[in-house]
């Protein structure tokens, strides 16, 4: 019997000004990355509420990544600085509860870093794939 290959579901929140544009650039340059990565556009990484991240895991995501402008380059001056603190604290809490720390990540990707976007997504997808299915933050009701 053939075992179905595990394809992780990855939600990537990208800020409109840098990372979403970085993803566009990756597209422009035809830089491939796994199709399991699905992007949600937000104005700034600081728009991402921890509730969204938990929601994604609840609904079946295996990994959640946040991408924003590099610190200092935020379109809104300081949004990503707040993101950095909030996510550092949230990720540490998830780890404290025994949830795999590799399932969440924050990366700074500028509009010029199409190659970085592609590389980051490829790496993150591989990391999550190696972890296997999200079991510790899953909601069985949402399984197919």
């Amino acid at each position, binding site marked *: 019997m053939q075992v179905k290959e595990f394809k992780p579901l990855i939600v990537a929140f990208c800020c409109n000004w840098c990372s979403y544009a970085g993803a566009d650039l990756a597209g422009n340059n035809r830089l491939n990355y796994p199709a399991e990565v699905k992007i949600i556009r937000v104005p700034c990484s600081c728009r991402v509420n*921890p*509730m969204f991240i*938990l*929601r994604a*895991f*609840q609904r079946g995501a295996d990994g959640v990544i946040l991408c924003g402008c590099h*610190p*200092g380059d935020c379109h809104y001056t*300081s949004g990503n*600085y*707040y993101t*950095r*603190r*909030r*996510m*550092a*604290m*949230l*990720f*540490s*809490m*998830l*780890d*404290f*509860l*025994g*949830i*795999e*720390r*590799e399932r*969440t*990540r*924050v990366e700074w990707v500028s509009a010029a870093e199409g190659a970085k976007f592609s590389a980051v997504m490829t790496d993150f997808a591989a990391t999550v794939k190696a972890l296997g299915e999200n079991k*510790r*933050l*899953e*909601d*069985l*009701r949402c399984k197919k």
Partner: protein
Amino acid sequence: MQKVSQQQLIDKAVSLLADGTVSCVLGWTKGEFDYDITPALFTDEASLRQGFVWNDFCGANFSKYLVAKTRKCEGKILVFLKPCDTYSFNQLLTEHRFDREKVYAVGIPCEGMADIDKVKAICGDGISSIDCNGEKMAVQTIYEDAPVQVDASSVLAERCINCKSKKHVAYDELMGDEGDVIDSARFDEVAKLEAMTPDERFTFWQNELSRCIRCNACRDACPACTCEVCVFNNPKSGVENKSPANSFEEKMFHIIRAFHVAGRCTDCGECSRVCPQNIPLHLLNRKFIKDMNECYGEYQAGAEVGSRAPLVNYTTDDLEPGEVFNGRDSDA
């Protein structure tokens, strides 16, 4: 035994009522047994003399009541604040949750509050009276002829064993000493959990949180949780629910709750005190406090009115989210 006596507090309250400084008194009133004490609002001398109590079981943190009570009361409210209550008091002021002008705060020293479960573990069930006025606590049960003498220190509540401060950070008037911040071991338990493997931690919390019955006592007793409408009651928030339907809901509720009070939680310990299921919820809050202290510098919510909490602040060289794990056991 508490350093300031019940009689002193009653006299203070009566005199402040009499001279018109305050129009009512937020205090503790006795119950059926000597330990089941309820917060109450007193407006006259007779009821104060008859009902007001102050002993080792006056654990309830009054600060939160001020949000609603100051809106309703004419005149000033007298509130007696233990040191840990003063931090919550300040934090609520930082968040503009009540009008400082409507409160007359009297700081009272606290020798720590007793945990009735610990008393029962020593003396057994069937308590008919507890006398906290002597050197030792005298507990009489229906099953024994003579009262059992208990060392107050042996029945201290967990939060009082790890008391962070005997200092009053807010008051209009102080009875007794101002007190000092204490070098407590309150983060030891968190550190112990941090030292476990992720699997052990997961099992630990899965077990603890599985007991949650979502009674919301932790939230409703929490002096930081004063939202006009809580996200867990708001059907549009996306996290509303009335029951911990499964282990995800259990975790989400407690993660979001702890995150919402992160940087605002003064570590008063009410959440764990009121949890009917004995879940050590304070460890979640303490984890955030410990992390913020380590990553962004020492910060004590409520120590100062108007201070800027770590999560509404930043520096340009903060550590990266991935770096919080640096130097920690990564045997994941």
